[in-house]
């Protein structure tokens, strides 16, 4: 396999596979927040703050994968 093709595959695989786990995580997180808010609407504000905290921690994992893919592609 040529090096360029392998690099392109590495970027695609890293970014694509790395997005699966955080996708599941974000869906679960937001779903549970909605569930919690529906059950106890007065907790909504606090839950939203916690959700954004968890959201940033979770979606950062996507970017780790993307950055390593870009490193493989451009370096």
């Amino acid at each position, binding site marked *: 396999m040529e090096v360029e093709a392998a690099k392109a595959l590495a970027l695609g695989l890293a970014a694509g596979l790395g997005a699966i786990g955080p996708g599941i995580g974000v869906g679960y997180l937001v779903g549970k927040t909605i569930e919690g808010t529906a059950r106890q609407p007065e907790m909504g504000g606090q839950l939203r703050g916690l959700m*954004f905290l968890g959201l940033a*921690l979770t979606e*950062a994992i996507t970017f780790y994968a993307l*950055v390593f893919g*870009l490193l493989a592609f451009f370096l």
Partner: protein
Amino acid sequence: MTATNVNVPVPNVPSPTELDGDPKPRGGWFGKLFFPVAFGLMAIWFVVILGQDAQPKTKFDPTAEFDLSDPVIGGTWNWFGIHGVEGTINKGVIYLAIALLGCVLFAWYVNRTVVRRLKQETKTQSAIEGVYEFAHDQIAGSLPEGKLFNRYMPYTASIFVFVWLLNMTSFVPLPLNTHHTIGGLDFLYAFGVYAVTSNIFMTVTLAMLTFAVYHYEGVKAHGLIGYLKTWSAGQKGPVLILVYPVEILTNLVLKPVSLAVRLFANMLSGHVLILLMLALSGIIGGAVITSVFAQAAGVVVALAFYLFEMGLVASLQAFIFAVLSAIYIASAAEEHH
């Protein structure tokens, strides 16, 4: 070794709830002109980005956008006269200086309105007080009440404002891209965006500050031996052989590294995405695309990413960095039994 209880008088942090009254904000020229000027500048920027580099290129290298080796002003010189310690005024330094200036202005304004209560009753004041209130309640809220709160609320608030300004100014295009020039003029550089926080040295430096602070507070609260004992995570007996190395790794490596890499990776990938989407309008895989529709689609996607990054990711990452700093400090100084 026990912790020495140094009684340094820590001034109370003013609480935003004491700022009573909601006087009618008097809209100044700033509030009236902000949105028209901002949207006008954005429109001009996209026209400039599209128009500045008309020749099609066969190879696009996004890493050139993150290259800091070219000085913008002056050349390379020795700092402090020490051999090997060399520096240039590159675009990162200029963005950093702008954010620092913003930080100083913010601190001055907070001192005027929140600390010294010089009320001006403007929209700017309520906006600044909103930021202060957010830092007081949401970010430093993770710190335990009392001395620790009064000592580290200014620290976490400063981290938040500084990282937030670094992130937000990184979306302001400045003529600092030394790889291209506009209009055949040697001195007029092309417009480009650069995030100081997409440089890992910046984020590692900020993470090292938090690293030093939370270990200092841990040792101060428990003593050195006592602090090392708190890393056992409440376990006793032979299971410590399994638990303790993981805790050592967490406290010494994983916490600061994840703090630094999270901010760095988010900002870097955000800027690379914007760049790639803009480049998509010109080239895909070396083939020059001349279709106006494909170029327009690239610009629209780039604008969408730009707004997403500026509106959500930049603020969220600054918030996460500050709130995790507060959580680490609180957990290091926490009372265990």
